[in-house]
């Protein structure tokens, strides 16, 4: 997969232009819009850190943790065009000391865990160099 072309896929209301992520919407949630038609659209793959934290303890299931558990960092990232904030882990190896609010990040794919020989891939945020 071409890393530079990795996008999250959201939905965009055909009538009012509101974005939704995750994109599994049936009805537009904008109260002044009664549309039920959406386009699947790629979301901005770059954004600004709204805030960040980490997880020092193993979360409960359905999280699948490495053994031993490896702490990971998390960022809430603001997408300018969509005017929304999306949460996700920060890329492996990035800690809370490496990021600040307002920092630019971009989307990457990372294997979150492997189960029964299958890789489970998710989006992560990587600080821009």
């Amino acid at each position, binding site marked *: 997969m071409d890393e530079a072309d990795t996008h999250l896929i959201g939905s965009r*209301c055909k009538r009012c232009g509101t974005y939704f*992520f995750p994109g599994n919407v049936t009805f537009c949630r904008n109260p002044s819009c009664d549309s039920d038609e959406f386009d699947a659209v790629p979301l901005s793959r770059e954004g600004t850190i709204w805030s960040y934290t980490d997880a020092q303890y193993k979360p409960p299931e359905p999280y699948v943790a490495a053994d031993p558990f490896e702490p990971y960092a*998390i960022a809430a990232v603001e997408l300018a065009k969509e005017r*929304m904030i999306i949460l996700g882990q920060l890329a492996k190896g990035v800690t809370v000391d490496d990021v600040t*609010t307002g920092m630019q990040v971009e989307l990457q794919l990372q294997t979150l865990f492997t189960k029964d020989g299958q890789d489970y891939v998710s989006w992560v945020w990587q600080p821009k160099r």
Partner: protein
Amino acid sequence: MSRDVVILGAGMHPWGKWGKNFVEYGVHAARAALKDAGVSWQDIEFVAGGATMRNGYPGYVAGATFSQALGWQGNEIMTCYAACATGSQALAAARAKIQAGQCEVALVVGADTTPKGFLAPQKGERPDDPDWVRFRLGITNPTYFSLYAQRRKDLYGATDEDFATIKVKNAEHGFSNEFARYRKKFTVEEVLASPMVASPLRLFEICATSDGGAAVVVASKEYADRLGSQRQVKIGGISTVSPKFASADVEMPDIATDSAAASNAYSFRASIAQKAYEEAGVGPEEVSLAEVYDLSSAMELDWYEYIGLCPQGDAEKLLRDGDTRIGGRVPVNASGGLACFGEAVPAQALAQVCELTMQLRGEAGDRQVSDAKVGVTGNQGLFGHGSSVVLLR
């Protein structure tokens, strides 16, 4: 003008991990509230119960469960669930019934028994359930608390010491509260030495889950006057508003906010207390004390701003000036807050109301806020629930 509705009595079962049936806590609290009100159970015309999601069928029909346990006597019943706002929603139902002239005196009860350990999502693969998705991605409740805490640090200069100070303050407040679960004082150093859970928040700064029960007896002012009650506290306003699209709050259990691409962005939390103030005809500058949802120590700072005690970004100053400790200008969480109670979801909003009732009557003992005239509560939880109650002496 609708008629005035007052709180006649308040009662609680102490918070803890008692491992008993939730009904026991609810009935204990209800009997305490009835006794406090000087009203007999058989005079109650309406029971509003806060549901609990963790105790099977009796929990889903809590209003009936409590009524049966107190002894069926032909009263009307309703049960509601609204996450953290459950107690306020039940209180609002009782108030509406009285305002409409359909009854004169009602009982509102909430109680919960919590499982041991962390709250975890239900089992199974449910990729359409946002609560499942976020846990799969490793996003837990402390994640959300800490995102807000970190943002305060970066935007407003909050410090780890500020967060620890909130815990220390609330622990001092709750130390003498017979209903609190944790009655132990802390130093800032002790809090900062507790293990980091989700940077920048530490173990002692994140609230636990508890068992507990709370109840109030509410009545029309006429009924209370006929009874000769000298300890009435007036319900000034109740807000149980929903968010407005596009909600800009990063909110459990969602992994994304609403998109404001085609709408204005709103802060839900900042909107909750507004309606309660408007109904009560008072403003935040008149507030004597507040009970707010300190799910984390840092979240209490956000609440100072959400309920209008100070402009956005000034909460740290309010804390550092000592304004929000007992003896300060506007004490917050005089009960000890969630820091001392732990959360018993369907009882918690009522527990806040019970504390304000005791304070406004001047019956709060060692933690009494002097000359308390106006009290406000604030809480907020999953799936667009939040509430605020303004009580007046």
